[in-house]
């Protein structure tokens, strides 16, 4: 049944940017919900503007709606004012397309992109009138499923989900829908349906596992309690990206969203092997899309969306082995029609600057490099294969090409970090600035260079070589930020930093286990939501929630774990073996770098044999890769 449209109109005329709560966007799919066997709601636990910037959502929406037996619709977390208005007037969470309550869908799939969106998941379930705990849901409640990067350690939210999909969804979502349909046809109970789903590769059903704890608070064992429960659950991976659908129609939002452009995914995976980076570990192996496919897809997307920009997406787009050909052919085809090409992620080298120069043409807005650490020693520890010379060369090339604003990303609180490494950040930034002054003076430019240093705090992530490492205590992180604030000032220098309290919560939940679920419930009851939004984070409430639940958050964020500890996510694997992670962790301690496997030598991370896949690289690297 549709929600009351008069009531909704009344609310919409009172809230900020109401356009994000209505339908009618170009390419949105409207099906008669009564005519399909399975109704899926993709729920994104952040605003419309954030959710509609997410490529995964577009891919799944497209694939599910390709099926005649399935209707897939969308819902986002309403912003604070809308949330309050809906609660006050009894309007439940509804789907954008059909304006049908979320509770009337068969499957509600949440995308878990970051830990700080967990409270929004609970707030959305509450607004939908769906019981938060999977164990409290009845036969008529939707199946609530999660996916996305946080699925690699979903334990803090495990009690809220009926099932969790690990890894890539292109093929798995169809299998889940098939299995659901079959269960419904056969009249299976909820429990039997979940067992059937657990047999789909990559699907983790938390209720089919028991977690036992030791007296010291660590985990004793994780035990499957059903023959249907796999141990470990292996992530899903698409062997050939060219063989699965990629949307040639994106929903074109009316509202201005964060990434409001064509997202053309050029490849998946990254094998640079930065030891702090979860994406680099869990999205392996590297699989490049065919050049011709990409060009053809870009053409269809421009025609179908009317977008004015094509963004070449991946974890490091300059790594695409045929990037020059791709950029040239897209520019040749579109530069005359006002469609721009952009590269969102750049490596620290002059090859990348050349590429940026080519796509950005004359509009030199700003360029970002991520050296991540201030000294060569620490960059070797984290396996960031970038040297001071790489950075200075890249910066020089950028200033010489006309850029005046450079942004440098660093992380503080990395394992083994010392004062010297912090001083290294200051030195590098000043060196880059000096090199900018020199280049701009040489070019006779009237404007002066600007270097912005952006520092985030290290967060240990599951399935990375640093998963055993504690996060630096908040007070120390603040002291490090204070040091940088003192030393990175003056003309041409700017510093941006992240709230350490948000990073602390992120660390707690990224290494968390099921005992954090009650904390989340407390936090939501106390009014926490939108924790990733600086102005909405209520840290005192979080402290209260931990206290009320008798959970010490520092156990998760700030303690060192041993290699032989049972980790909360030990029953889940992204294919990268624990042996490899241990070996990388030890190499980090010794400051030994590990090369990129795309250069030819296998680093034995385990992904290919574990998941029976192989890297797919179109051409051997000839330039740019050191």
């Amino acid at each position, binding site marked *: 049944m549709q929600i009351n449209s008069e009531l909704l109109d*009344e609310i*919409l*005329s009172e809230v900020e*940017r*109401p*356009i994000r*709560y*209505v*339908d*009618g*966007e*170009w390419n949105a799919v409207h099906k008669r919900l009564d005519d399909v066997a399975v109704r899926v709601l993709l729920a994104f636990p952040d605003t419309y503007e954030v959710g509609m910037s997410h490529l995964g959502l577009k891919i799944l929406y497209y694939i599910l709606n390709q099926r005649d037996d399935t209707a897939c619709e969308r819902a986002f977390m309403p912003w604070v004012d809308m949330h309050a208005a809906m609660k006050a007037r009894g309007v439940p969470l509804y789907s954008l397309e059909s304006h049908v309550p979320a509770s009337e869908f068969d499957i509600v799939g949440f995308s878990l992109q970051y830990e700080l969106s967990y409270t929004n998941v609970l707030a959305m379930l509450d607004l939908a009138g769906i019981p938060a705990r999977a164990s409290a849901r009845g036969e008529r409640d939707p199946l609530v499923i999660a996916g996305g990067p946080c699925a690699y350690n979903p334990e803090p939210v495990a009690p809220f989900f009926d099932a969790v999909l690990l890894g890539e969804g292109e093929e798995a979502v169809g299998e889940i829908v098939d299995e659901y349909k079959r269960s419904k046809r056969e009249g299976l109970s909820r429990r039997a349906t979940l067992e059937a789903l657990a047999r789909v590769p990559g699907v983790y059903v938390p209720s089919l596992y028991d977690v036992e704890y030791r007296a010291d608070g660590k985990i004793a064992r994780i035990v499957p309690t059903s023959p249907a429960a796999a141990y470990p659950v292996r992530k899903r991976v698409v062997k050939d990206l060219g063989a699965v659908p990629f949307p040639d129609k994106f929903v*074109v939002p*009316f*509202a*201005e969203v964060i990434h409001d452009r064509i997202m053309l995914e050029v490849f998946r995976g990254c094998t640079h092997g930065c030891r702090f980076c979860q994406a680099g570990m869990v999205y392996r192996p590297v699989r490049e899309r065919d050049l011709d496919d990409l060009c053809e897809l870009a053409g269809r997307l*421009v*025609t*179908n*969306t*009317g*977008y*004015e920009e094509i963004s070449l997406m991946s974890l490091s787009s300059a790594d695409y082995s045929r990037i*020059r050909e791709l950029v*040239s052919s897209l*520019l*040749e085809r579109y*530069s*005359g*029609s*006002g*469609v*721009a090409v952009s590269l969102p992620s750049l490596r620290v080298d002059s090859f990348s600057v050349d590429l940026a*120069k*080519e796509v950005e*043409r*004359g*509009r030199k807005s700003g360029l970002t490099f991520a050296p991540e650490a201030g000294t060569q020693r620490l960059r070797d520890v984290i396996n960031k294969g970038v040297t001071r010379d790489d950075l200075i060369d890249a910066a020089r090339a950028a200033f010489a090409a006309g850029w005046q604003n450079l942004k440098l990303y660093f992380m503080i609180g990395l394992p083994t970090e010392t004062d010297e490494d912090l001083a290294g950040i200051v030195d590098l930034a000043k060196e880059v600035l000096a090199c900018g002054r020199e280049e701009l003076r040489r070019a006779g430019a009237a404007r002066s260079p600007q270097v912005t240093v952006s520092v985030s705090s290290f967060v240990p992530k599951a399935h990375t070589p640093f998963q055993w490492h504690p996060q630096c205590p908040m007070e120390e992180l603040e002291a490090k930020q204070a040091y940088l604030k003192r030393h990175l000032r003056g003309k041409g220098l700017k510093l941006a930093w992240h709230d350490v309290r948000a990073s602390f919560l992120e660390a707690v939940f990224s290494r968390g286990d099921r005992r954090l679920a009650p904390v989340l419930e407390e936090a939501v009851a106390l009014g926490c939501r939108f924790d990733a939004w600086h102005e909405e984070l209520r840290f005192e409430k979080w402290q209260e929630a931990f206290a009320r639940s008798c959970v010490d958050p520092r156990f998760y964020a700030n303690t060192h774990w041993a290699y032989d500890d049972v980790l909360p996510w030990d029953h889940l694997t992204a294919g990268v073996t624990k042996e490899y992670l241990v070996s990388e962790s030890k190499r980090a301690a010794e400051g030994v770098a590990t090369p990129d496997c795309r250069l030819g030598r296998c680093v034995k991370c385990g992904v290919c044999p574990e998941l029976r896949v192989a890297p797919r690289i179109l051409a051997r690297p000839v330039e740019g890769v050191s």
Partner: protein
Amino acid sequence: MVSAAVSPPGKPQATCRLRLTKKGPARFMSHLDFIRAVERAVRRAALPVALTGGFHPHPRMSSSPALPVGVESECELVDVELRERVGVDEVKERLEPLLPDGLRLMWCMVLPFGEPPLSSVIRAASYEMVFECGDGIASQDAVEAAIEGFVRADSVRVVRTTPKGTKEFNIRPLIYDLGLRRRDGAAHVWMLAAAGPAGHVRPDDVAREIARRAGLGRACARARIVRKDFYVERNGELVPFPRE
């Protein structure tokens, strides 16, 4: 490798003038959302749009004055500069099926390039404000009385909040005509007000003021507002925007 030269933007040869509705959920778009939606529809239709020069070329487009969020329209005007002349029928045929919900093409004209911009010819706009009066005659009488008071007043002040603070305006001199029609238990208010060099009247300000003066309850205080037409000046008279 492609040379970094920027292709010439293409000198406009013609102006395509579109009259569009903005109805239903589309009324919640901001003016920028609306322009962007038209721009993307025009690109989907692959019309030969002239681009601005420079390194970041944009389609050369302009529009009638902004509509407040939540107000519907039957008369939004958008000028799209074309780098080659295209027939009216072709524009219609290509664009119509590619417009999103709520944006309907009412008519279009293709004019020689060099037409004076919309902003310099539009003087006024007409609006219909419908108050659904639950208790019928009494509320309609109240609305009528409010309008009479409004028309008789020398000054009607509205407060507008901007990022820079609040400002008070006297909108009375900018309202050229205000009248009531009773229909199906609803009060239909018709207004002709400045939308041009003399100033801009926000119809939602006027509707709120009428509701306040009429003492309407919460249920019917919020009017459904539709912009009906734009007006230009011909021989000292305001006439509806010509389709010629």
